[in-house]
């Protein structure tokens, strides 16, 4: 990898790049899925290539290739330079980057069991056993399970002298029971919807999830949902489980704090942000108990947003995003940090693969735990709804107005969990919602969730992000609007 990367840098500088960086990435994956007792998807793959990013005459260019011969790399470097020169045709001002040190380092996330060394037949067997448990429950019409593993080895080399080698091992799994009856399709997922839980860990994560043990419970809940109460309409107290709160953070905090959105760089596709620059350090984002960080350090946990260095060679950092309710930080890169006068990037440039340009992405955007026990939170709620596991999510292109629904809910009456509620939904305005938060559960209930499917950029890039969250309570929230009746 090193000789390839150095050759690419050398060729870019020879063509008068004022700055160049190169990512050589070798990505291996394994994906397994099952459905109703059969293996569905069963594939492994590898992809090796490099991407070269250059600044020439003050403008950016990027080219990528999987032809890793001298000719292929030289051609790719020349292409990046030619593209930068074309960018210069519509240039307003030269690119300015915030200062950064050079680093020569290696980093790897710790894991116990290499998932690629676990026999595939035993991985399939786990999914099929969970599948069988779900289908034992009368009324389940579809049982599905999946596991996915990624090993990403990458070398970043830049013309300021950095050479950073990183290896990330990622594992994830989940199961889903679906039931069709009458005029209704219900589903329940474990441990989370849309693919389950994903972390920078080895196969030990899959073993800890214990899919088989949870399969009967979600299957029974799925079938029971047909007879559950409909979600009432009106204003209610709601308590969100930690996985739903993780997605709420992702959509209504994680995306709006991306500084490239704020500065209009994503205006055509992902949209912009209500968090305009004058709101930094002045907006009351949430109530006093709301504290949110962007933390890519391993100390925060092995989340999908954990790394040693970002993809432009900036070390992992912890940035306070919301401190005691006050908005205090954006996600930045070297270019946008400089654009708003900040001395240094907080290290959030990430790329999906060797053939994609790094862009600002969430790292681990987490709400810090509070001090409540979950049981006490329920006991302390007179009239509300507890909502669990996301079912649908939507938010406007400036991240003001959102609507979420979850797979299941329970009525809370006089401090006790009561009747089941089907497909509960809630909606609101971001800052009003976070300011209505009056209780957050403690570290004992806090989970670092992985969202493996965050889309952004053109061409589209899918990225994994992490979101630590504990169950939390919100007052006076609009519920039950998600219906066309």
């Amino acid at each position, binding site marked *: 990898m090193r000789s390839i990367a150095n050759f690419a840098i050398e060729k870019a500088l020879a063509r008068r790049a004022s700055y160049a960086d190169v990512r050589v990435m070798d990505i291996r994956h394994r994906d397994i899925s099952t459905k109703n007792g059969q*293996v569905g998807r*069963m*594939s492994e*793959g590898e*992809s090796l290539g490099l991407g070269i990013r250059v600044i020439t005459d003050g403008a950016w260019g990027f080219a990528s290739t999987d032809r890793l011969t001298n000719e292929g790399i030289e051609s790719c470097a020349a292409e990046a330079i030619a593209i930068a020169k074309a960018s210069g045709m519509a240039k307003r001002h030269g690119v300015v980057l915030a200062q950064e040190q050079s680093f020569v380092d290696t980093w790897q996330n710790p894991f116990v069991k290499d998932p690629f060394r676990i026999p595939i037949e035993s991985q399939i067997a786990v999914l099929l056993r969970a599948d069988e448990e779900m289908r034992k429950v009368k009324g389940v019409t579809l049982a599905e399970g999946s596991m996915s593993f990624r090993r990403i080895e990458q070398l970043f080399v830049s013309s300021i002298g950095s050479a950073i080698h990183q290896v990330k091992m990622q594992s994830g799994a989940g199961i889903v029971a679906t039931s069709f009856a009458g005029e209704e399709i219900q589903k329940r997922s474990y441990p989370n919807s849309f693919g389950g839980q994903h972390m920078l860990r080895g196969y030990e994560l899959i073993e800890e999830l214990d899919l088989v043990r949870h399969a009967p419970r979600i299957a029974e809940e799925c079938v029971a949902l047909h007879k559950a109460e409909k979600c009432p309409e009106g204003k209610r107290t709601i308590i969100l489980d930690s996985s739903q709160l993780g997605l709420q953070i992702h959509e209504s905090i994680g995306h709006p704090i991306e500084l490239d959105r704020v500065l209009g*760089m994503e205006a055509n596709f992902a949209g912009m942000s209500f968090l305009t620059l004058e709101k930094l350090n002045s907006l009351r984002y949430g109530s006093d108990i709301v504290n949110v960080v962007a933390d890519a350090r391993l100390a925060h946990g092995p989340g999908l947003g954990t790394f040693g260095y970002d993809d432009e060679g900036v070390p992992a950092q912890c940035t306070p995003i919301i401190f005691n309710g006050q908005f205090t930080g954006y996600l930045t890169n070297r270019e946008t940090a400089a654009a708003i006068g900040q001395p240094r990037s907080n290290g959030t440039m990430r790329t999906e693969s060797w053939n994609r340009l790094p862009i600002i992405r969430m790292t681990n955007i987490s709400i810090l735990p509070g001090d409540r026990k979950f049981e006490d939170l329920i006991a302390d709620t007179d009239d509300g709804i507890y909502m669990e596991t996301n079912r*649908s999510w939507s938010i406007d292109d400036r991240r003001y107005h959102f609507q979420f629904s979850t797979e299941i809910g329970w009525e809370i009456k006089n401090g006790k969990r009561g009747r089941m509620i089907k497909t509960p939904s809630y909606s609101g305005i971001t800052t009003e919602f976070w300011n209505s938060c009056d209780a957050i559960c403690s570290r004992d209930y806090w989970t670092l969730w992985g969202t493996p499917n965050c889309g952004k950029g053109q061409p589209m890039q899918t990225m994994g992000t992490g979101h630590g969250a504990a169950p939390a309570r919100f007052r006076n929230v609009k519920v039950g609007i998600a219906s066309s009746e």
Partner: protein
Amino acid sequence: MPKPAKKRKAPRSRVSSGHKGLAAHDHRLGAPELRRIAEKIFKLSEADETEVDVSAVTSALTRFANNTIHQNVAEQGITISVRAVVDGRTARASTNKTDEDSLRRVTTAALELAQVQPRNPNLLPLLGPQKLQKVDRFAAKTAAATPADRARAVTQVCQLADRNKQTTAGIFSTGLSEFALANSRGLFEYYEDTRAEFSVTMLEKDSSGWAKATSARVDEIDPLALAERASKKAADSRSPREVPPGQYTAILEPPAVLDLVGFLFYDFAGTCVHDQRSCFTGRMGKKLFGENISIWDDVYHPLQLGAPFDGEGMPRQRVRLVDRGVPVNLVYSRATAKQMKAKPTGHGFSLPTEDGEAPFNLVFSGGNASTEEMIRTTGRGLLITRLWYIREVDPYKKVLTGMTRDGTFLVENGRVAGAVRNFRFNQSIIDMLANVETMGPAVRASGEESFDMVVPAMKVRDFHFTEVTKF
């Protein structure tokens, strides 16, 4: 079908001192090269049967924002995907390395993955050679587009924004894809197409407008005309006022229609109905939509793109999915067709998969009404440019939620009465297609939530707008 390689311009030298930027055709491999890779795999394979997909992509995208190019990228890559079949089992392995050792490794990996699986009772033998209908979706001009060509067009758009005191953002991309499917029973199918896409947003202080087009032929895309349309939308949507949510007649421009009806595509899969998660489960043959709604899947339609064969090499058929409001047919892979006692339609995904098949070339019947006519005949309604962040709330009623974006207007007494703040909607697509009053001609529409389709503008009564946002 693709023209013979010899008729194409010869590839330029890939590295020169005066490098002006490569065009997609500089990386074109051609059918013989893809066949050569596949044949190498067949020689290495010890499986009972072997299938090889080879795809090669060369793509470039110029991205602009704040009236300047801020991201400008190109990619070139190949993927070789091998499916081994052994004793009623199958699995797939892929690589992007073309050296002998890598091809041997990926071939062995596919076999070893297959061997450790349970037998699949639904697995069918590979297909032999098929007769395909020809399609020609390669445009030399698109394949020849350079970074400078895209930058010139973007510069003009930025200058327009400057003149109109607006801020612009968008993309201009061009590229070439090649795909070959071959198997050890002698099937070899090759498809290539070129793609061009231009998408533009124009912004003012409190408003925005958007336009987008895609085509195989870059010369069918007029970036400046699209930018002018987006610019006018932004100007017209200044000072939006808040009007209350509720049921409105909605005049949906084609991209808005596309991004809604796009959520129906997998419901037409035989597998989806078999799994009882389609909104058509138990409803086939029953009148669901209005008499004016007919839908086909038709890869051969002149406004469509895509290969004339599916993931197993079956020729794609034109399928009537909805006939005057009644869902009448589904699409089927070979295995699903066998399970459901139907005939395969050539819509299967690459195997192995649990998803079966899907139609990717939907074509809606259209009408003759212009958008102006729809406005003129509306007492009170909303004119919608584009929708955003659409998600499914109820899969059987097919209720979707999402937001309006980049140009939402109140229509009163037959005229546009000004811009309004964006709405959230919660709307059943089944109800929507039962409430279509008039339609425009079906056009190739492009949005951001769905793949491109051929759909008309629609005027829909009683569309459910449930909340309003702050802009």
